[in-house]
């Protein structure tokens, strides 16, 4: 599924959460990077047809999120994991995912139950399928959210901060899962964890105060930092950022901090920090 955003804006009173965003997102996994308040959740809620844009359009395979009938078509192809995930605590895990599957028009019981089981197995919740949701840990609840998002085999998967509350092992499993899901569909992953994007995304969009600062492959974002990342004894006052690494040296992003500094291979995080710092300095 292709997502095309044209001059998309959304305001909350005088606050502009999205400011004339233009972007095209194709199949594969796209990471939506940005700090808190960048507009990531607003963008995902617009794409999930929950929020109308103030101006501009968002089209998914040609269907506009602004038209009633087309919204239904979008929802039929959508899997959405909200940032503030609400679950019904009295339902069992199976019942909840099954209930959402029914609302996602999976009416044939045998097929639906098979899909529910597969979704629960995909997020490793098969052992707790019969447990009430209120008895689950935060990480488990997050996985229930992911299960309901993928149960109807969506063409577009919107994941808003999906790895929050997951332990490292679960996060690795989640990356594997999303990696598999992204092979045949469009996945938009909103996060402020660059390592998630680095691990699984095929493209990345950096949002900053409602504007798109960067869109392209993660390698391109990383490339932005080439020649600007150093290992040094001391930080430069002009550095965009610096922090001490496990070998005792400082990792410095920015101009060469001085004699003795050696250039090192940049990471995606370095590129992200540089892109966002450019905006700051401007």
């Amino acid at each position, binding site marked *: 599924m292709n997502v095309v955003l044209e001059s998309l804006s959304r305001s909350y009173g005088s606050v502009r959460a999205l400011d004339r965003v233009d972007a095209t997102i194709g199949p594969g996994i796209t990471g939506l990077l940005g700090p808190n308040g960048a507009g990531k959740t607003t963008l995902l*809620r617009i794409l*999930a*047809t*929950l929020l109308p844009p103030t101006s501009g359009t968002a089209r998914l395979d040609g269907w506009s999120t602004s038209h*009633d*009938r087309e919204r*239904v078509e979008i*929802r*039929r192809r*959508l899997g*959405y994991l*909200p940032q*503030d*995930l*609400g*679950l*019904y*605590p*009295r*339902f*069992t895990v*199976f*019942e909840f995912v*099954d*209930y*959402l599957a*029914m*609302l*996602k*028009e999976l*009416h044939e*019981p*045998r097929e639906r*139950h098979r899909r*529910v*089981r597969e979704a*629960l*197995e995909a997020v490793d919740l*098969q*052992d707790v*399928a*019969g447990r009430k949701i209120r008895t689950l840990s935060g990480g488990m609840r997050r996985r229930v*959210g992911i299960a*309901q998002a993928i149960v109807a085999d969506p063409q577009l998967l919107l994941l808003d901060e999906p790895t929050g509350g997951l332990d490292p092992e679960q996060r690795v499993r989640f990356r594997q899962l999303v990696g598999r899901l992204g092979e045949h569909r469009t996945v938009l992953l909103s996060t402020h964890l660059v390592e998630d994007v680095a691990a699984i995304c095929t493209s990345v969009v950096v949002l900053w105060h409602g504007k798109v600062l960067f869109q392209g492959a993660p390698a391109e974002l990383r490339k932005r930092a080439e020649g600007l990342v150093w290992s040094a004894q001391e930080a430069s006052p002009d550095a965009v950022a610096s922090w001490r690494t496990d070998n005792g040296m400082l990792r410095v992003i920015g101009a060469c901090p001085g004699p003795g500094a050696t250039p090192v291979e940049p990471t995606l995080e370095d590129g992200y920090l540089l892109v966002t710092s450019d905006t700051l300095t401007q």
Partner: protein
Amino acid sequence: MRVPESIALRRSRTPLLGPIWTELRHLTYALLVLGVGASAIIAIDQTNIAYPTVGYDTGVAYHEGEILSAFLLLLGAWLAMRDRRSAATDLISSTPTEQGVVRLIRLGALAVASAGAFGLLFLIGLVSALTHGASGGVDWMLVPDGMLGSTLAAWLGFALGLIAPAPAAVLGAALYSGGSYFINTQYTHYNTLHVGFQWLLPFPPLPQWSADLGYVPNIFGTHLVFVLGWLLLTGGLIVATPLSRPRRTFASQVALTGVVAGLVLASLFGVQLQAKANDYTVSGPDPAHWAPEYAWGASGLFTPNPLIYPDDHRATACSTSSAVRVCVYPAYGRSLATSLVSILDPEARAIESVIGRPTYVRMVPVAEESCGAGFGQAVLTEQYSFSYYDDLRGYLISCALPQLGLLRYAGYGGLPHDYPAQNAVALWLVIRSGELTPSAVRRGVASWGVSCLADLPCTPEYGDVFGFGSLDWTRAEIRVGLAMVALPPVRVASELRELWPRLVAGELPLAGLPGYRR
């Protein structure tokens, strides 16, 4: 490891039934249990003081649906607020199922739960009645009517939950149940407006109920369609509300149809219910000769005109002693007739000497009992309270008094009576009935004088003189009456039998009575 097959839920064949079943499984059953429990306890408590009949007892259970409704209102409000409370609104809204259909699913679950809860309450009422030995039939119209009324309460709660935060919903529920109860209990039978208004409630106060005639007037056919109209209107508005603009979708069509049909039904049948407030003509055996007159402010819903309700030969559950025969409607069972005979037989024997005394008591479906002067029979109103039947002492004697030219009710045009012998015999009968004691009569005479006797208060000490205000006993009459009381009743009865024609004709002097000679 795989998810076990056994975890799969019950299957459904249609798109709506599956989610309705899931919703149904997760309603707050504590509220349902509390609602059914509270209303059933109150219903059983109320019927425990009444003579058990299936029709009346299940009617009481029906009416306690009002208590159940308060809990169902909370249940509906809780379900409506669930998405907000659990922050699941976005999750549900992002599915292709229209918001209107989601609401339709939840209304469906509430309808099934509410109807089931009311059905259980009604069943408890029925079982309780049968356990207490009740007989007779059920007015089955009450069941769908109560189910619709219960569902309406839950749907109103759902609407309340959608638009109000939790505390307001709770307050609304309290106002709803309290308001209904207040209207039902405080403003009944006062005037036409109030009667018509109270029948517009989901659980109206029951009209007069008769084992023979059913409900008089029978509002339940009309009321059922009226509540159905409100239900369609409420449901339609709930489903239609989230639609941002008119679209021809399944939910919008259902909603629109519901709103229009509901408006039409509620309006038309609401007007009919109002009109029934004055519609009290009952289908008695011969309405041309007997028709109850509506009388506001009377103790019952309506009072009969002075005509005797004709014998419809429907009071066929009878019991007989040597002095009196009592027949009641079969719905009360023969046991009531037997019980009444045991109460009435002693005084029937006491007035055996009274020619034309009632020997036959039959039940009638009106609110006021009458005495069939000259017919040898009395009619006994249908009443449900045990205390009423225990309080029948003096009933036959009061019916026998018209044989002496005396009228039971002063309001019936009784005039001062010039026949001292009849007055003395009347006093003897009243004392024999136990309504007045000789000592009370003596105290009354000593305290206020003879002319004040009629003003004796109706206290346990003096007994209920039930309206002998038109009688002014003279000292001579009282002396003879008390003297007759002192004689053996059998002897007085025997002597009176011989004297009766002259006594009724007003030709017997006071000196001719047994007590005077003594």
